[in-house]
């Protein structure tokens, strides 16, 4: 029974990890931007959640929506003001830019929120559980997993059923031709980065309800995002989802076996995947249909 519980908890964490990876892969697939500050935006969302809950009487759900909107605006601004100036065949300027941004963000977190380890307290919901045939499952993990799966589903619908979604995929394939059909490349990039940051930020906020974070947690989050993308395959929605679940389950089960292991087992599993699959890093870059 303990194993079942651990696996289900792993799904919950894994759904969020999948969203970390999705945000990173989405930005890379469309703009070819490796966003080194990706993890720091995830942490920023958690801090925003902490502050909104502490300073305003807003209910939790509204706070989540607010953080999502702020994250979209930040992603949009990041692309419009900084990254659109680094477009071109060379990916290094965007990497250096976001690396600098990452350093700025981390230090800003320490300055504004202090260096303490934090988590989001959501009161009674935290410990509520349901009993299924002797297996107790937390209500919160269930809600979080449903939210993550729902976001993946919504992304799938967006990418396949809407004009902007098709334009995102087309931009990943051939942005020049997209321009000749009347689409403004920069505006599409702005929206894509907004969406990428939103997905991961919401996941970061939800994760902060289950585990703690510090101003420097961004590096760990970024590492997880990279691992998810590499396990799941670049440019695949489904790959990110299952890559995240895999990593989450391994990590949580590993923690049950050895409570001091931290993220060790997740990283080990990733290493094994690398060894066994002889991964070809120069994968097709396009954002494929999932």
């Amino acid at each position, binding site marked *: 029974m303990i194993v079942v519980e651990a696996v289900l908890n792993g799904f919950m964490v894994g759904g969020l990890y999948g969203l970390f990876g999705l945000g990173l892969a989405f930005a890379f697939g469309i703009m070819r931007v490796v966003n080194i500050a990706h993890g720091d935006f995830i942490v920023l969302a958690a801090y925003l959640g902490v502050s909104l809950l502490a300073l305003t009487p807003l209910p939790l759900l509204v706070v989540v929506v607010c953080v999502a909107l702020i994250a979209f605006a930040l992603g949009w601004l990041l692309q419009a003001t900084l990254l659109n100036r680094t477009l071109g065949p060379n990916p290094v300027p965007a990497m250096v830019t976001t690396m600098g941004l990452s350093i700025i963000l981390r230090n800003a977190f320490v300055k504004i929120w202090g260096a303490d380890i934090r988590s989001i307290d959501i009161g009674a919901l935290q410990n509520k559980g349901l009993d299924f045939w002797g297996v107790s499952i937390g209500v919160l993990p269930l809600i979080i997993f449903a939210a993550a799966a729902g976001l993946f589903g919504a992304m799938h619908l967006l990418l396949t059923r809407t004009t902007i979604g*098709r334009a995102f995929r*087309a931009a990943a*394939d051939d942005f020049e*031709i997209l*321009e*000749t059909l*009347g*689409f403004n490349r920069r505006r599409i990039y702005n929206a894509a980065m907004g969406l990428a940051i939103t997905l991961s930020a919401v996941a970061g906020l939800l994760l902060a309800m289950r585990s703690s974070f510090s101003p420097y947690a961004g590096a760990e989050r970024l590492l997880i995002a990279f691992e998810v993308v590499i396990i799941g395959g670049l440019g695949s929605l489904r790959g990110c989802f299952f890559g995240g679940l895999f990593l989450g389950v391994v990590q949580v089960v590993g923690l049950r076996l050895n409570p001091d292991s931290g993220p060790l087992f997740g990283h080990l599993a990733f290493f094994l995947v690398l060894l066994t699959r002889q991964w070809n890093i120069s994968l097709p870059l396009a954002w494929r249909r999932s």
Partner: protein
Amino acid sequence: MTLLTLDDVDVFYGDLQATFGVSLRIEEGETVAVIGANGAGKSTLLRAIIGLTPPRRGEIRLAGNVITGLPCDVIARLGVALVPEGRRLFASLSVEENLLIGAARARPGPWSLEAVYRLFPAMREFRRQAAAEISGGQQQMVAIARALLTNPRLLLCDELSLGLAPKVIADIYACFVEILRSGVAIVLVEQDTVRARDSSNRLYCLLKGKVTLDKASRQASREEIRRAYFGDRAA
């Protein structure tokens, strides 16, 4: 009425100059062929017109308005469409999704999804397939349909016949009668000079980035085209 004029246009790729003082005009509803050898600057000219590679000198006017230096997407929405060399369909989208992208920012006009399926009835059969999976000839149909769906006033076609079987090429060219009937003007860039001459009203020949022939297609003799195509030294 004149739809498009190029006046003394110089296009550069970095420090490399690709065209030298090219001037040409396209009247409303006519078909103009641009022929020339590999590297003569034909594709460059099309890229300059639609704004992908803006000219460094010279002026381009669309229906009297200067469009030099406008962003590509703006020029596209003013009524210029490109059927690019090598088709360049969005490979991870289905055929119909490619068409929907073409229609998404369209000007008002006669071309709808329904209309392009009527133009290429075969396209209906493979519309659910991934664009990367269909044959070259099928891809060419989709590329033409995608460009038409923007309801352009000017359709730029780059090397339609490249890599296709003669039968397929003939089929595709047969559809141009229908396309012209919708009132759109066409620029045909071709290496196949005979086909280009036979399916156009007027003819320009480029040689190393310069216009070497500018004539009504019917009056252009083979000898004249040969000399314009290869330069005088070959004569």
